[in-house]
Each structure stands twice: as C-alpha cells, then as structure tokens.
C-alpha cells in the first residue's frame, strides 16, 4: 500500500513538473519577443557554449568516426561491400549518430553547467539581487542561455559530424588505402538534402531542450547547495531522456514526409 501511495505521489509530481516546465517554456517565448533584448549576454553565452565546447565535441567526433569505421569494416569486408563504407558511415553519422551523441555530450557539458550556475545564483540570492537592481533575471539569464544553446548546438553538431568523417577517412586511408579526396567524393555523393536537412532541424530542438531543462532546473532549485547538485544532475538526466524522445518524434515525422 505504501509503495502504491509513493508511486502515485511520484507520478503526480512528475506531471506537475512537466506542467511547470511547460509554463516556463511559454514564459521563454513571451520574454523572447519583448524588449529589452540582451544581445551582449546572448553573444557571451554563444561564446561560452560554442567555443568552449569545440574541443570536447571535436575529440568525441574524431573518436566516434574512428571507432565506428573500425567496428564496421570487418563486417562489410565479409560481404565484399567495403566500397560502401564512406556512404554508410556518412549517412549514419549525419542522420543519427552524430546529432544524438554530440547532443548527449552537450547535455553533460552545457546542460549541467547551466543548471549548476543558475542554481547557485538562486541559492546565493544573486538572482534576487539582479531583480532588485531592476533587471529581469529571466530575460538576462534564462532567455539568453536557451537561445544560445538552440543556436550553438546545430553548429557544434555540424562541426562534430565533419570531424567524425575525418576520423573515418583516416581509418579508411590507413586500412584500405582510400585517399581523402576519394573518400569525401563518395561521402558527398551519398548525402542528399533529405539526409542533412531533417538532421539539422532536429538539432535546434536538441539545443532548445538542453537550454530549457538546464535553466528550468537551475532557476527553480531550492534547498541550498544540495539543491544545486540536484539541479545540475537532474538537468543532465532529464535532458538525455528528452533528447531521445525528440529524436524519436523527429525520425517519425521525417519518415512520413521524406
């Protein structure tokens, strides 16, 4: 009985949180189009999220490309289809693996740092101080971060995909003596508009989800420093789950229209 009661409470609090997050995102859209616009802080956040994530995304992309090619190569060789390698790798990376893996990496890097930063500002009254000084903290902290994450994630994914393809080309060059020019010729022959466009569009939604959940968890965090840790941690967990849900919807919708 106690178990059922606690399950009921958990389900209720889950749906309450979904509701609160929906109101939070509605407020984001409302504040997004009202003056004053915080361009300077937006550019600063784009720099923090974009530039400072480049190394991590680059290394992840490179390893992803190398490992993926090394793991796939023997199977394709068994079927005598190793010539299909550039096409297969590029389509898998651009369509699915690149966006999802890089979004997950960014959820850890960007989402948790947003959650921790805004959460610690909340518990140390810095958000109240901002409000008392006549600044709208939602606009200054939340709108700029969500927008920056939405704009930066597609760029990071494109960069990560490109590095992953370079990693794959390196392996192909070493193992199969395929030149870089030939490899990338085959890559661009294989990729079509319907591979690149839906994959890029969904990364905007991934970025929005990372920014939204990180900001929501940080902005609503309570209970002192423990609350900050919880905000940071749950930002990553919730975002990761949300990324897969968005990915599922995106693939489903793409399948209908393309």
């Amino acid at each position, binding site marked *: 009985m106690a178990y059922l009661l606690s399950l009921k409470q958990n389900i209720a609090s889950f749906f309450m949180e979904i509701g609160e997050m929906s109101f939070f995102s509605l407020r984001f859209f409302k504040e997004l189009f009202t003056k004053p616009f915080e361009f300077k802080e937006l550019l600063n956040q784009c720099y923090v999220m974009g530039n400072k994530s480049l190394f991590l995304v680059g290394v992840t992309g490179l390893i992803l490309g190398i490992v993926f090619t090394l793991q796939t190569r023997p199977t394709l060789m068994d079927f005598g289809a190793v010539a299909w390698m550039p096409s297969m790798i590029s389509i898998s990376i651009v369509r699915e693996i690149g966006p999802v893996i890089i979004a997950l990496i960014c959820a850890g890097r960007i989402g948790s740092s947003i959650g921790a930063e805004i959460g610690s500002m909340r518990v*140390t*009254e*810095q958000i*109240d101080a*901002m409000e*008392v000084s006549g600044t*709208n903290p939602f606009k200054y902290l939340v709108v700029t971060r969500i927008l920056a994450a939405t704009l930066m994630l597609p760029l990071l994914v494109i960069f990560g995909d490109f590095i992953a393809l370079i990693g794959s080309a390196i392996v192909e060059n070493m193992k199969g003596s395929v030149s870089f020019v030939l490899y990338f010729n085959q890559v661009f022959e294989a990729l079509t508009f319907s591979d690149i466009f839906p994959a890029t569009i969904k990364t905007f939604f991934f970025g929005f989800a990372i920014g939204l959940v990180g900001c929501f968890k940080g902005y609503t965090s309570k209970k002192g420093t423990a609350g900050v840790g919880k905000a940071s941690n749950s930002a990553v967990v919730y975002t990761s789950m949300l990324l897969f849900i968005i990915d599922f919807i995106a693939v489903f919708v793409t399948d209908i229209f393309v």
Partner: protein
Amino acid sequence: MDLANKIMNSKSNKEVLLVKDLFKGFGDNKVLNGFNLSLFEGENLVLMGKSGSGKSVLIKCLVGLMPPDSGSVELLGQDISKLNHSEMNDLRTNVGFLFQGSALYDSMTVRENLEFPLRRHSKKLTEEETDTLVMEALENVGLTHTVDWMPEELSGGMQRRIALARALILKPKIIFYDEPTTGLDPITAKEIILLILKIQEKFKTSSLIITHDVDCARVISNRMLLLLDGINYAEGTFTELSSSNDPKIKAFFK
C-alpha cells in the same frame, strides 16, 4: 552615537515607505499577521526579530521579490501591487538592497558587479563616466584597490562593503539592509556599522535595517520595531525598548 543623533535630527516627517496590514504565510505557517510599518525620509529604522520570525520574508515583500497574501506596501508613494514589471523596475532604481550573504555576482569582477546596475539604468553614460562612478563608489567603502578582484578573492567583510557600494551606485533614496553584520567578526561588524552611518550621513538616504544584533541596533537606530508573532509588537527608541519591563521585549536585549 553622535553620527546617529545627527542623522536623527536631519529626518523629516515624510513617509518613504508605508506598510499596512501585511499578511504572508507558507501553508499553515503564518509568518506575517497584519504587520504595519512606516519609514520616514532620512531615518534609520531598525527592525529586530528572532531568527525565523519572518524578517527576511518581510523585506522581500517590501521590494516585490515575494508577493504578500494581503495588505499594502507603498514605496516612495507608489503602491507596489499596482505596478507592472517595467514600472517596478523603474521604482527599484531608487531602492538599494544589501543582502545577508552579499549576493555579489560571482562570475563578474568587482568592477563588473558595480557596473552592472549602471549599464542597465544609465545607458547614456560614457566609459569614462562609468569608471568614475565605480571608483567613487569603491572610495566610499574604502576598497578602490579591489576593483579588478573576483568576489571569491574578497573576505566576508570586504564582500559586504562591495555589496554596499553596489547598492549605493545608483544613489537610491531608500536602502534595505538584511542582517548587515551577520557572520562577521565583531571588529568587521563595527566597521560595517560605522560605514552604514557614514553613508547615511553623506547620501541622506532612508534606511530599514533588519538585524538581531543588539550592538548594531544600539549604534545605528533612530527608531526600532520589534517583530514578534508576525506583528510589530513594540516600537520606540533603543533606550525606550531596552529599558522596557515586558519580558518578551527584554528577551531581545539579553
């Protein structure tokens, strides 16, 4: 004490803050039960209360950080419940707030902390004018050398002074102090108290100081209010209240 008397003589009868029948509760816990308060121009009003008596809740209701359940707050002649967000922000430029934990923006240097309110409310200022105002504010609190330091490099007392400089930079008419001496050693606490008095004399601001530090109240107050059970239980000068025979009032001064 001389400084406090001097400030007392300069106070007028014009109310800059008027609180009427303020109620605020969290579930069954009724924190404010019809609280009333008036703050006069140029006055130092000290509000004393035990820990958890609702002092911080009250001060947050006064600046619109927390909506009261009922009652009215008139700040500089304007009922804050009737103001929209933009009007409230304009009004807030006339109000300074010193937070209990200083609340300096920890990702910004001292200079950036002080520039933050200036850049948002005085957009026509040149770089040079902004710099002059920042250095002036730091000079008022005796910390010009920390201008490029990060908040984590400052001691607790220094952080409190910088927070005071930030609260003063827009030359507010009213300053709210939330436990200005809490967590500081007695010497630093005394320095902060004297600094508040010095600033009060220089800028002729009205101040509401929330504290449970009796020494702070003795030195700083022109008038005192005791917050007990969510109401203004007693009111008077420090001497009047500290010599009261009421056991509940006496408990504050032990």
